Each structure stands twice: as C-alpha cells, then as structure tokens.
C-alpha cells in the first residue's frame, strides 16, 4: 500500500505557564492510503494535537510531515489552506455549522471558498446531501436539525471536495448512541470507498472498530495495533 501520510520525528511543544509540555514527542508514523485508523488515549495525551497537525491546522516545532509524498511542513499558510480545502475533510465534536446558513449552504461552503459557480455548487451539494440521507432537510437551519442530522451535514460538507483524508475529532462525542451509530456508518462507508479515515475518540467501542488502533500517552505513540475487521 502507498504511504499517504508520513510523519518523521514530529515534536510539538506548548508553553503552559512556566512548564514546557510536549504535546507530541518525536512521533514517527506512517498511514497508508485508504486506512481506517483510530487514535485513543487519555486527555492531554496529544491525540488532538496529532490530528490538528495531520489536518495542517497546526504546525510542528520540529520534524517532517509528508502528505502524498510531498513535504508540507514548511508550506505557507496560503498553500496549506489550499491543501486543506482540496484534500482534507474535517468532522468536529461540536459540528461547527454556521448557524445563519441552511444545511445545504453549509455544505456548499468549501465550494464557495474554491470559487465554484452557483449551479455546479448546488448540484454537487445536493448529491452529497443525498448520500448522507438528508435531501429533505436541505433548507433547514442547523437549529432545526437534531444532533445526528447536524453531524451528517458536517460529514457531507467534509466530503464535498472529495478529499483523500477524513479527520474526525470525537465525532460521536455529542450524540446519543443511535445517531452516533448512523454517523459512524456513513464514515465507514466512505472509508470502504477508498477515503483514508482517522478518528480521535475517547470511546473504546468506537475506537475498536478501526482496523488500526493507536494509543497515545504523554505525546508518544504507546501502542500501534492492527485488527481484523469486525472485532
């Protein structure tokens, strides 16, 4: 399998008062195209920081990060933004939908930023809304949707640019178990169709579904296991 992501000795340091905290300490990791990976660990273990760096939302203090064979460590903000837009999708615990926009307008946002014309935008947005089963909810505002529906809108938005990497930060953290399962189902279907899925979670049940499970402790990868599907 080709290596989609390669991290080499990544270190990320935060200054908290007098103390220096190593959120990431010399992390080296390779993720293949199409993998399904979960990152677990206690609070403060650095799993969110790792996700942010994978998603180019944060920069490492040292080390190298290659995405699809290209070193992206030292790209400018603008170039990184373009990669985020075109190749990476995010799903957050708190959904982060813009409250004044309708569901479909939220889904269209990445296309809007990319300067895609109105007609094409609407067409593509309708297609992804259908793929998450929310066609009839297109014109609803976020506050008229249930938590599960909001997260599905967020997934639709994350996938509309057809990224190769989907990053989810506690995607079910704010959902009841029923809607949580629906959300997971949708993401796993996307993974089966070839997207690389990385999920950060506290939830062991969710974490164990992934084919590859990372455990982080104190900014290091403490455990890295492959499992068979369906365990």
């Amino acid at each position, binding site marked *: 399998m080709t290596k989609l992501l390669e991290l080499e000795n990544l270190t990320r340091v935060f200054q908290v008062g007098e103390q220096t905290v190593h959120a990431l300490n010399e992390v080296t990791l390779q993720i293949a195209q199409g993998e399904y990976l979960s990152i677990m660990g206690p609070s403060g273990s650095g799993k969110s920081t790792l996700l942010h760096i994978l998603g180019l939302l944060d920069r490492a203090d040292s080390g190298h990060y290659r995405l699809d064979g290209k070193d992206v460590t030292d790209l400018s903000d603008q170039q990184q933004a373009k990669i*985020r837009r075109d190749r990476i999708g995010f799903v957050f615990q708190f959904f982060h939908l813009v409250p004044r926009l309708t569901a479909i307008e939220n889904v269209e946002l*990445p296309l809007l930023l990319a300067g895609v014309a109105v007609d094409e935008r609407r067409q593509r947005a309708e297609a992804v809304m259908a793929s998450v089963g929310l066609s009839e909810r297109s014109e609803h505002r976020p506050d008229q949707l249930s938590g599960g529906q909001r997260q599905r809108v967020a997934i639709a938005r994350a996938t509309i640019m057809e990224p190769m990497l989907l990053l989810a930060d506690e995607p079910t953290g704010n959902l009841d178990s029923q809607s949580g399962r629906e959300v997971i189902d949708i993401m796993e279907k996307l993974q089966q169709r070839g997207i690389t899925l990385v999920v950060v979670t506290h939830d062991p049940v969710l974490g164990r579904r992934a084919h590859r499970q990372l455990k982080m402790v104190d900014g290091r990868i403490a455990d890295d296991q492959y499992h068979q599907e369906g365990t």
Partner: protein
Amino acid sequence: MRLADMLAFAMGAINGQRGRTALVLLAMAIGVAAVVILTALGDGARRYVMAEFASLGTNLLIVLPGRTETAGMGAALMVSETPRDLTIEDAEALKRLPLVRRVAPVSLGSAAVSRKQREREVQIFGSSAELLTVRHLTMAQGRFLPESDLDRGQPVCVIGSNTRKELFAAEPALGQWLRIGDRRFRVIGVLASTGSSMGLDPEDVVIIPVASAQMLFNTTTLFRILIEGKNRESLPQIESYILKTLSERHQGEEDVTVVSQDAVLKTFDRILQALTLTLAGIAAISLAVAGILIMNVMLISLSQRLSEIGLLKALGAAPAQIRRLFLTEAALLSLLGAVLGLLLGLLGNYFVGRTYPAFPMSAPLWAIFAALLVSLVTGLVFGVMPARRAARLDPVQALMRR
C-alpha cells in the same frame, strides 16, 4: 472566491447580527447626515450672501476716494498726502464716459429726523434718481427722487418703511413734511422693506438728493460713486476710463480706488467656502467616531464568531480570503449606513428648507460624494485591524469554542 459570493456571505453575516448592524448603521447614518446637513447649511449661507450681493446691482463699479496700495513701508507711507475729494462734478464727468449706463453719487451721513414731537437719529443717503435702479430698490408708496441735475438740491425725501412707522405711526406719510437737521423735506415716497441690505438698510433710511445732503452736512465731498456699466465685459474698460478721467480732473493724481463687485463677491465666496469646509470638517469628526464604533463592533463580533472563523480556516479559507471577507463586511456596513444617512440628511434638509423657505438649503453635490467616500474609507480603514486579527487567528484555538 467569487465577488458575488463574498458579498452574499458578508450580507448574510450583517443580516445575522441585527443588534450589531443596527448600532453601526445608526452611528454611520448620523455621521453622514451631519455632513450633509452641515454642508447644506454652510453652502446655503454662502449662496444666501451671494444672492444678497447680486441684488446690490450687477455690472457695478464703486469709486472710493483715496488710493489703497500694497507697497510695504515705503516712502509713500512717510509722505502720505490727503487724497482729493470726490465731488459732484467728478460724478457728472463720469456720466459722460462711454459704456457707462448709470451713475449714482452717494453722500452718507447721519442726522436727527423729526416730525412733531417724534425724533429719530437716522442714516441719511444723499443720492440721485439713478440709485433706485443701481441698487435694485423697490417702492412701497409714492415715487423715488425726481430726475434732475445733480447740483439741484430739492427739499424732497424718500423714507424707509421702519422710519415711516416710527415717525408717522398710522398716519399717511406721503406729502407730509419732516425736519432733517435744520432743513425741511417733503416725503414723496416710501421704500419697500424687501431688497438689498448691503450697506443700505431699506427699512431705516432717509434718501434725499445729493446736493441737499451736502448742504445738510456742509460738505462738498462724496462718500462714493456707484457706476453701472452697460455689460459685465466692459467693466475693466470702464475702470480704466474712470481712472483716466479722474486723474485728469485731480491734477494727474490717481487718488481714487475702483472696486468691482466681482472682486467683493469673490472674496466673500472664498470666506464662505472656507466656512462650509470647516463645517464639513466638524461633521467628519462624527464620521471618524462612527469608524471607531465600527472597529469596536467588528472586534466584538470577531470574538463571537471565533468558531466560524476557525471553521472557515479548516475548510481551506486562506488568510487573505478571511481578511477580504471581513473587510467586505465592514465596507458594506459603512456603505449601508452612509446611504441611510444620506436619506436622513436630505430629509433633514427638506424640512429645514420648508421651515425657512428664504434660506437656500441644499447640500452641494461634492459634499454628498465626499460623505459617501469618507464613510467607505472609514469603514475600510477601521475594518483593517479586525480583519487582520481574524485572518491571523489560530484555527485550533478558534475551533475549541463551541
């Protein structure tokens, strides 16, 4: 990002925060309305004064005794000589000049005017029949001074409306006699109170033939000579004729000053233009205040929209895009406020205009465009700081908020 999308997105954000929007629009509207109304007042004052001057008479030249020169501390100042007086004969001579239509000599003084037990100290204008047209005066009753030779001092007078009221109360004034100083004059006319007021108050004045005035004040000099040319273009020509004629008559001494009305008008125009600009400047301060308010409100809105900004960054908005979005929002806000203020100001002008119909109340076009431009620039300038801050936000921090 497309321009239309950017505008729509900014409009959405503006529409999504009604309270903030109302506040900013109000501040901007007040600023712009202040500019529009104050410049309208200033410019109205300018045009009002200009109209007053125009009623002084068009194509007018004024001859004053004495020479004003701008020569520093020269010998001329040391050996200054008293200028020769302007006389009735000078006026007669000027009358014969080509291109001159009318000549009105003016002798000015003040004297006690009495009738029976009533007595008033009134300005006495000694002049000729020509004064009526030269100064655009209108009669309320009777007639103006009769046409006659300048050196014939008939005992007749024309009085202002207020003078008439004070001396005659409700009685008819025409044909009555009154006493000016130690001489008796018969009232042959009463001036209408409208008309020119520059230097001649048509309400409180008594006008008598110039020769009578000279006898009254026991003098042979004239205060000035008013000359009306045939047309505006001939004024410089006439001016040189006047100077030539009078210096010939004054033993080669060019000892008079000729002032054209244009020169006076221009001076006043400059002064009042400066006044209008001052008012506009004062109003611009309120625009600056509105700008600072926009900055504050944008900063507050920034902290309320942290997660939105974080999200846009996560979705791949470049810093420049975020900056443009926020600037667009600030510019739209200030433009909307400016348009609102423009309407408000024009409405204000309309009502002031209706309340004081005599005052020409309308904002000059440049002021309207300047107000719009300044408000837009203000919005952009004060929008830069919040926009830069938004663009620099750390997306991870911004997304930590719900």
